[in-house]
C-alpha cells in the first residue's frame, strides 16, 4: 500500500479529526487514525467509540489497503513540514514509511481491521440544513448545557425537529437557551439529545460554511454528512426535561437596555462580587438600573447606574454574574430585553434586534434568592 499526498492538505484534515481522539484511551487502538485507501480515494477516520469522524481525501495512488497510524506521532510530524508532497509506504516490517523532501520516517502501524467500525444507521430519518445554521445553533446553545453526571441528558443539546421549525435547547438547570429556526423544517417530527463533544467539533468545522449538512438519525445514533466529512455519534439516552413548562408565561416586568453597556457594567461590577457565588444585585426603579456587588469577606464593593427602559414594578433581583455575562456575550444584538416576574422566578433574556429571518432566541436564567 502506497500513496502520495500533500502534507498541508493531510494535516488540515487530520487536525479536525484529531479533535475526537481522547488523551487517555482505554482502547489503545483509538490512539490511531484509520487510513483506508481505495485507489485515488483515501478515507481517514478517528473515533472515541461514542463518535466516529471520517474525512475523504484525494491522493495519488492505485493501491488498496487499511492501516492504523499513531495519531499523535503523525500529527506532530506533519506540523513541522512546509507544504510538500509526502509518500506513505506500508512496509513489510510492520512500519509505515513516510518520505519527505527532507528524509524518511518510519511509524509502527496496527492492522486496519482492529479499528472499531462505525455503526450503521438503521432506518434513519433525515433533515438537510446549511452548515452555518447548524454551527450557529450549536454555539448559541452549547454553553448552557450542564456537566452533571447525575443528569446525563442535560449534558447535551436537545434537537427538536418538526415540520414547521427546528429547535435546539440546552440547560444546566440554572440557565437555559432555546434556539429556534422557523426557516428550516424537517420532513417529520423527531427529538434527540446530542453529546457535547461531537457538537463542538461540528461547530468548529461548520462555522461560516455554506455547505449543506445532511443529518440522519434514529433512536440511538445521528449522522452528519457534509462536504467530504461524515460524523456519526451515539445519542444521549434518556428523556429531556420538559423545558417549556419552566419558561414563565406571565412576565409583567420588562427591562430593555443596550447589551454592550449592560454586559460591561456586569463584568466590572462582578469583579467585586463574592468569589464563590459571583453574585450581583439588580435594582430597577423607574428608568434606572442599579447594578451592585459586594464581597463581605474582603470589604469589596461596587455599584453602577445605567439608564434603561423599564415597564413594571420596582424590583430587586440577584443573579450569578457569570451566567449573565455568558448569556449577554453569546447574543449579538445591540439591545436586549430582560423580562421578569418575581425575584425568585426565572428571568427571560432575549435579543431585541439583529436576528436573522426566522431565528428566535430565548434565554432563561434563574436568580439568586437574596436574603436581605
Amino acid at each position, binding site marked *: 500500500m502506497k500513496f502520495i499526498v500533500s502534507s498541508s492538505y493531510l494535516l488540515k484534515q487530520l487536525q479536525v479529526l484529531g479533535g475526537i481522539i481522547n488523551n487517555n484511551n482505554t482502547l489503545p487502538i483509538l490512539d490511531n487514525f484509520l487510513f483506508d485507501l481505495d485507489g485515488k480515494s483515501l478515507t481517514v477516520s478517528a473515533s472515541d467509540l461514542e463518535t466516529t469522524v471520517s474525512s475523504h481525501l484525494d491522493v495519488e495512488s492505485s493501491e488498496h489497503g487499511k492501516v492504523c497510524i499513531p495519531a499523535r506521532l503523525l500529527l506532530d510530524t506533519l506540523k513541522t513540514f512546509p507544504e510538500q508532497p509526502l509518500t506513505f509506504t506500508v512496509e513489510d516490517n510492520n512500519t509505515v514509511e513516510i518520505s519527505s523532501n527532507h528524509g524518511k520516517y518510519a511509524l509502527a502501524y496496527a492492522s486496519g481491521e482492529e479499528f472499531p467500525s462505525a455503526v450503521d444507521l438503521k432506518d434513519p430519518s433525515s433533515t438537510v440544513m446549511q452548515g452555518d445554521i447548524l454551527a450557529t445553533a450549536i454555539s448559541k446553545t452549547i454553553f448552557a448545557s450542564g456537566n452533571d453526571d447525575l443528569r446525563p441528558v442535560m449534558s447535551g443539546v436537545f434537537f427538536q425537529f418538526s415540520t414547521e421549525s427546528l429547535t435546539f435547547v440546552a440547560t444546566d438547570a440554572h440557565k437555559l437557551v432555546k434556539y429556534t429556526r422557523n426557516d428550516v423544517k424537517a420532513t417529520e417530527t423527531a427529538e434527540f439529545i446530542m453529546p457535547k463533544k461531537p457538537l463542538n467539533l461540528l461547530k468548529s468545522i461548520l462555522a461560516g460554511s455554506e455547505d449543506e449538512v445532511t443529518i440522519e438519525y434514529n433512536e440511538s445514533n445521528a449522522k452528519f454528512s457534509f462536504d467530504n466529512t461524515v460524523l456519526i455519534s451515539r445519542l444521549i439516552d434518556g428523556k429531556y426535561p420538559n423545558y417549556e413548562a419552566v419558561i414563565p408565561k406571565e412576565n409583567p416586568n420588562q427591562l430593555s437596555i443596550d447589551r454592550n453597556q449592560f454586559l460591561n457594567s456586569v463584568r466590572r461590577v462582578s469583579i467585586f462580587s463574592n468569589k464563590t457565588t459571583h453574585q450581583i444585585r439588580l435594582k430597577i426603579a423607574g428608568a434606572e438600573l442599579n447594578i451592585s456587588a459586594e464581597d*463581605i469577606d474582603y470589604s469589596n464593593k461596587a455599584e453602577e447606574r445605567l439608564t434603561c427602559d423599564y415597564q413594571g414594578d420596582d424590583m430587586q433581583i440577584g443573579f450569578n454574574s457569570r451566567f449573565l455575562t455568558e448569556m449577554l456575550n453569546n447574543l449579538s444584538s445591540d439591545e436586549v430585553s430582560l423580562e421578569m416576574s418575581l425575584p425568585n422566578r426565572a428571568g427571560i433574556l432575549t435579543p431585541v434586534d439583529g436576528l436573522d429571518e426566522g431565528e428566535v432566541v430565548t434565554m432563561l436564567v434563574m436568580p439568586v434568592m437574596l436574603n436581605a
Partner: protein
Amino acid sequence: MEVPELPLRKIIHVDMDAFYASVAQLDDPSLVGKPIAVGGSGRRGVVSAASYEARKFGVRSAMAGALAAKLCPELIFVKTNFERYKEISDKVRKVFFEYTDLVEPLSLDEAYLDVTENKKGNPSASLIAQDIRAKIKKRTGLNASAGISINKFIAKVASDVNKPNGQKTVPPEEVLEFLEALDIKKFYGVGKVMKEKMYRHGIYTGLDLKGKSLEFLEEHFGKSGGYYYNIVRGIHTSQVKSERTRKSLAAERTFNENISSEIFMLEKLEHIADEVERRLKKSNVAGKTVTLKIKYSDFTLQTRSKTLALYIADKHLIMETVKELLFQEGMKNSVRLLGISMSNLNNDKKEVLKVSEEKKYDVQLKLEF
C-alpha cells in the same frame, strides 16, 4: 520497625463462612456435611457459593455448574434464596450494631466494624470479635470468621487467615511484619491481571512491594501505585462508612411543671434547638422540614410542621421557623412536653445548600424540571 504515626483505630472485618451454602445447610439439615453448591439454575448455571465440603474438591464460586459437577460428582445444587440471606444478614447486622454504629456492610455476608470506640466500652477488639462471633453463632447458628487490625485492609486480609470459624488479630506492632510476609495476591485489589503485573516486576510478597519506590510504583501501576506504596506500610486511612441513613433527627423535653405561657415555651425551645443543632452538626446533615411537637397536660399530642425551600442546620434559622409554628395558633391547654424534629434531611449530600453562620444565605435557584 516503626508503626506509622496515625491515630490507631481498631477495625474488625467479619466474614460469614460459606454464607449461602451454610444457610442452605441450616435450613435443610440433611445437607450438613455434604458438598453443596448454591447456584441459580442447577447444572446449567454458575456456582455462586460452595460449602467447605465442596471446596475440598476444588469447587469455587463463579465456576460453571457443569465444571463443578465434574470436579465433584456428589455435588448437590441448591437454589439461591435471597430473602432468607437478607433475613439472616439483618440478624447479623443487629449484632454488629450492639457494639458500634460504625458498620460498613460490604455485602450480605461481610462487613467492617470500627470498634475504636464501642458501645460496650471494651478496649479489646479481639474480645469483641470473639463476642460477636459467639452471638452470631447463637442467634443464627452460623459460623463467622473475623480479622482484627488497625485498618480495613489488614482486617480483611486477616479474616481469611484462620477461616473457617476462626479469627486473627494483627496488633499494631505486628502489622509491618504481617504485611511483609503476605503473598502479593492476597493484597486487596490485586486480581489476576495485577498479580501477573506484579510478578513481572519481581514482586511476590509484601516485602518485595516495600522494596519498590513510590515513583516506581506510580510509573508502573498508575494511580494505584500510591495506594500500594502506602498499604504495605500499614497506611490505609479509608474510614468505616456506616450506610445507615437518618430520616429525621429530634430532641424533646418534658417539663417538671406544665407551662402555659408561650414566652417560657420559647425559652425552653431555645435549649431544645441547641440540642437539635448539635446533633445535626454531629451527623453533618441539614433538614428542610421543621416539626414542632406539643404534648398537652391532658396527654394529647399535636405536631405542627413547615417545609422550607432550603436545608438548614443553624439554630437561629430553626428557631425562626419554630417561632412561627409556635404562634401559628393558640395553645389548647397547658403544655407538658415540647420537641423539635428535623426531617427531609439531605442525606445524599447532593443538594447541600450551605448555610453560613451569619445570616447571609443567598441561594442560587434552579429550574424545577
